[in-house]
């Protein structure tokens, strides 16, 4: 089983689950569709990566939180809309860098197209909210301060951070947001050490499969 496939699959799966929680709760109907669209893309990516790593359903439904290898960033609760958008920006710019570095890989090439759209969507909203009203700006800055520490984990074992910063920093600057200093850098996701949020997420995601093991759907 390829560890890398498992990492990419887990990231996408948990990110998809969080975005799907927005369904019917987005600020506008059109945004509801957009977020669901992105969640669907991510779930598709998760299925491809997990299928290459093993049995997708086994991997998604029968592992405990200690066995999941996603970065902590994607398992954090949605928070408000700005919080969700900023997390999407950080994660999709990371994916964009990652898939560019994997060019030639069948799954990465397919996913790269989708991810370009995700980045575009997150960038537009980051600019709008960061440079919107006083209220939206304040919320974005708070979300930024809260999420920034969790971005470091994305770059463990790769050299993508410089490229990531070269995309993210100008967007934050244009959105009139202040990029936090690097400091605390929580880690552990890749080795199954997670925030307390993941096990709740998994309990909900896996409940049916665990109640009826072996059933066909």
């Amino acid at each position, binding site marked *: 089983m390829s560890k890398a496939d498992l990492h990419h699959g887990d990231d996408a799966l948990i990110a998809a689950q969080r975005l799907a929680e927005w369904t019917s709760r987005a*600020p*506008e*109907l*059109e945004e509801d*569709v*957009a977020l669901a*669209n992105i969640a669907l893309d991510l779930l598709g990516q998760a299925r491809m990566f997990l299928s290459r790593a093993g049995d997708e359903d086994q991997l998604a439904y029968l592992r405990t939180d200690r066995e999941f290898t996603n970065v902590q960033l994607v398992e954090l609760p949605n928070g408000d809309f700005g919080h969700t958008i900023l997390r999407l920006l950080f994660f999709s710019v990371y994916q964009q860098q990652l898939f560019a570095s994997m060019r030639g890989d069948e799954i990465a090439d397919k996913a790269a197209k989708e991810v370009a*759209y995700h980045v*575009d*969507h997150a960038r*537009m909203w980051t600019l*709008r909210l960061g440079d919107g009203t006083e209220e939206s700006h304040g919320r974005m800055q708070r979300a930024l301060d809260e999420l920034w520490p969790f971005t470091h984990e994305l770059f463990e074992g790769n050299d993508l951070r410089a490229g990531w910063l070269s995309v993210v920093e100008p967007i934050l600057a244009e959105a009139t947001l202040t990029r936090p200093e690097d400091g605390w850098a929580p880690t552990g996701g890749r080795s199954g050490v997670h925030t307390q949020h993941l096990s709740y997420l998994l309990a909900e995601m896996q409940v049916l499969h665990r109640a009826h093991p072996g059933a066909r759907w």
Partner: protein
Amino acid sequence: MSKTDWPLWEVFIRPRRGLAHTHAGSLHAPDAEMALRNARDLYTRRQEGVSIWVVPAAGITASSPDEKDSFFEPAADKVYRHPTFYDVPEGVAHL
């Protein structure tokens, strides 16, 4: 968000092998850029090779139903007004 104005936009789409943009529907968006992206999600499922126009609904002037008669009722008894006396030459695909 309720304080933001999300005006109505009309969406016109030209399919990949289509010849003209056709009215596909409408949607709400805060500006043209967002309207374009929403239209892509809602009406094209991100198919490659399509062209999308978005127009603020306020920018469209429509003919009035009250004027329907004077606007559209053709003078059917004046046959010379209708180009029905010509054979369409072969090879003219889109007449």
